[in-house]
């Protein structure tokens, strides 16, 4: 049915930059509106599964697959981001990650018959968030701000950025989670003074101390542990329950993946319940047997005490690094699901000597802050500015396996350092620079970040070459390296070999692969939209048949309409959205004079009823 559309403006609205909290357990997407940041869709569990037919599923559905198909489902993948096979051995003991055989320097996970790197798994979660956001906003979403734990190192940040690219998102900024929380929190109140953010999430712990002044959020220091979170509490309770069951039933169910996942769900429920009531029970049934263990808050607190204690060391270090007195910290903001635990709140209150703020939903506050940052980048938010820091010192390897620090931790980013390099022997053609991150003095105690190769030096006597290398940590906390020949002033090429993580070429290949999938997604959406439109026009046509105007049409015109409806119905269930569109246009044309007639009738009717 032809409709007369009013064009509200010829310019298309600029696509929105979304803010994404890519969490260990759950993820969320938010956007900045005129009234403030707003969550766009429900919580998306950070779980990815591959169905038996080979379809990749992310979110709530995948979380259900964790119970039925644990072997082809992965959760807490954030723990693996930017890490190598050698440094996840502890993780492998606690989490049912299925490494693909032949997993080399870059980790690969086996999900059913598919093999994916951690950034690819995360990309599936991001793609789900992207689609959710597009559905609500009604526009395509191509740019995002993604949050990361403040204590993430360079490789972990790079892996997160890679995940965004693979998902078809341009990552305009990585924002530290506690800083994002401070943004969300300080937005409405124009706060001044010192604020501490205690962020205890599913898999990571961060603490940051910020100075708030006239819309500027200056991070003074940050500290944390990227492998400490609610997961650790779950694993502790799970281990206890498994031991109990072993001794009660004489059966080791830890080998049964599906049973373990059901038991894991049961201990999580018990943990969450204990935040609100003084006692509960872990209840689990399997193979006709029942396990039940009562648990009081006192027992729970004693069990998790050591885990909570592990968060306090970084807090003390952070206060020291920020060079502030604990009495001068005006407020403590609580972020992350694990801060619902009363023991956590009590310990934080004791340490910071001020009542922690819990009024904002700790699950949402990071995503809301990411949306505020997106607003800042879009230019919609003018009066706020984030000045963040790098969590770890950057150094280069020197003689004897020592590390010379060139950018110190808690330096405001972007931060840079310039060093000169030369050759050690006559005719040396290249210089290898090994860059590390960490606070320790020996290379073996720091984390290798990358090796930069200054190649094609002109052959010269030793010590004559002068190559100036600039190390720059950008606003995302990611290192960029450029080199310049001091004598000629020319840019010198640097070849980067990341110690962990994907090379640019690998990411490009993944983007291409996912592009095919995105094309499929896009086609699917276009098809759906075409069908929605077809439904609308057919419903309108059906209704019009009852109108007086329809009876005024001649036989030929009616036949034309019938035929157009029939043809549209034929292509409706096909896969070609263009064909559906063509038939919609045909029906539009066929009903054109009918629509005009109806308009005239309606106008006449309206005029008749009007007294002039």
């Amino acid at each position, binding site marked *: 049915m032809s409709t007369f559309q009013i064009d509200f403006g010829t310019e298309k609205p600029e696509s929105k930059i979304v803010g994404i909290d890519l969490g260990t357990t759950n993820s969320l997407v938010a956007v900045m509106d005129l009234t403030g940041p707003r969550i766009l869709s429900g919580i998306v569990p950070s779980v990815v599964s591959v169905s038996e037919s080979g379809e990749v599923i992310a979110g709530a559905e995948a979380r259900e697959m964790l119970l039925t198909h644990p072997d082809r489902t992965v959760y807490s993948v954030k723990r693996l981001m930017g890490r190598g096979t050698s440094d996840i051995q502890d993780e492998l003991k606690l989490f049912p990650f299925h490494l693909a055989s032949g997993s080399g320097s870059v980790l690969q996970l086996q999900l059913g018959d598919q093999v994916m790197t951690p950034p690819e798994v995360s990309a599936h979660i991001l793609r789900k968030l992207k689609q959710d956001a597009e559905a609500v906003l009604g526009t395509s979403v191509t740019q995002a701000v993604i949050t990361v734990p403040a204590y993430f190192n360079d490789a972990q940040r790079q892996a997160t950025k890679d995940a965004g690219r693979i998902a078809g998102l341009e990552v*305009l*900024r990585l924002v530290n989670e506690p800083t994002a929380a401070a943004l969300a929190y300080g937005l409405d109140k124009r706060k001044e003074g010192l604020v501490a953010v205690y962020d205890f999430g599913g898999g990571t712990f961060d603490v940051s101390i910020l100075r708030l*002044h*006239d819309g*500027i959020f*200056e991070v003074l220091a940050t500290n944390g542990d990227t492998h400490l979170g609610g997961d650790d509490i779950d694993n502790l309770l799970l281990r206890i329950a498994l031991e109990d069951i072993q001794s009660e039933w004489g059966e080791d169910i830890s080998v049964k993946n599906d049973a373990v996942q059901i038991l894991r769900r049961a201990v999580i429920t018990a943990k969450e319940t204990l935040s609100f009531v003084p006692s509960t029970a872990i209840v689990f049934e399997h193979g006709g047997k029942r396990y039940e263990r009562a648990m009081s808050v006192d027992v729970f607190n004693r069990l998790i005490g050591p885990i909570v204690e592990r968060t306090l060391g970084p807090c003390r270090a952070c206060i020291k690094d920020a060079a502030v007195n604990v009495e001068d910290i005006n407020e403590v903001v609580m972020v992350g699901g694990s801060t619902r635990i009363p023991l956590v709140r009590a310990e934080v209150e004791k340490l910071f000597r001020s009542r922690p703020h819990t009024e904002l939903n700790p699950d949402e506050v990071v995503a809301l802050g990411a949306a505020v*940052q997106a607003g*800042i*980048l*879009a*230019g919609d938010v003018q009066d706020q*500015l*984030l*000045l963040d820091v790098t969590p770890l010192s950057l150094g280069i390897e020197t003689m004897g396996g020592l590390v010379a620090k060139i950018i110190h931790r808690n*330096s*405001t*980013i*972007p*931060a*840079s350092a310039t060093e000169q390099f030369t050759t050690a022997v006559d005719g040396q053609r290249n210089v290898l620079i090994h860059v590390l991150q960490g606070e320790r003095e020996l290379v073996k105690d720091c984390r290798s970040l990358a090796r930069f190769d200054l190649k094609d030096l002109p052959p010269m006597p030793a010590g004559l070459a002068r190559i100036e290398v600039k190390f*720059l940590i*950008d*606003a995302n906390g990611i290192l960029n390296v450029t080199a310049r020949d001091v004598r000629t002033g020319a840019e010198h090429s640097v070849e980067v070999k990341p110690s962990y993580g994907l090379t640019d070429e690998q990411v490009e290949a993944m983007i291409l692969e996912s592009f095919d999938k995105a094309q499929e997604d896009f086609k699917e959406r276009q098809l759906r939209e075409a069908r929605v439109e077809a439904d609308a026009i057919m419903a309108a046509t059906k209704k019009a048949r009852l109108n007086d105007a329809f009876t005024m049409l001649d036989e030929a015109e009616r036949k034309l309409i019938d035929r157009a409806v029939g043809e549209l119905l034929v292509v409706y269930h096909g896969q070609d959205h263009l064909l559906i569109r063509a038939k919609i246009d045909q029906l539009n044309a066929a009903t054109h004079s009918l629509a005009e007639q109806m308009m005239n009738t309606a106008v006449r009717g309206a005029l008749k009823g009007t007294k002039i």
Partner: protein
Amino acid sequence: MRFYEALDVPPRLALDPEDLKQRFYGKSRLWHPDRFARASPEEQQKALEMTSVLNDAFRTLKDPVQRAEYFLGERGLGPTKHAPAELLEEVFEMNMALEELREGDQSARPQLEAARNRFEQLLAEIDHGLYDMSIRFDEAQDESLLHAIRSGLDRRRYVSNLIRDVDKELNVHLPN
């Protein structure tokens, strides 16, 4: 004096910390990469470079010691490696005590703690002297003061390294 220019402050040894902070915030509002997210790649690169210099400048100039080291370094008066002669005897005795502590003799502990406190006091005196000389230099621009400041900085570095070493040993070799 690139760092002074970045923050738009006169090249002086004594600076008002509050004024410096306000200038830093003001310049950050102008140049931070967040303000150029939708600008051309060239403008983004410029913002990145301006901000990294600005951050490096503020980090250096807000700390009086780092500021003085930078100021002198720019005038070709870098640090020297001379150990302050007047401290040599005391440092010698302290090293003996450190050796005893390393060998498990906890009776050396009080002597080390006393030495540590003396060095802390000395550090405060040096800082005070540096502050005075900085103000005087800013007024008179007397080059000889710069050399005095340099030796003050050398002493300071030496003493704070001593304190760090003693602290390390005191914490490592704790009584059982």
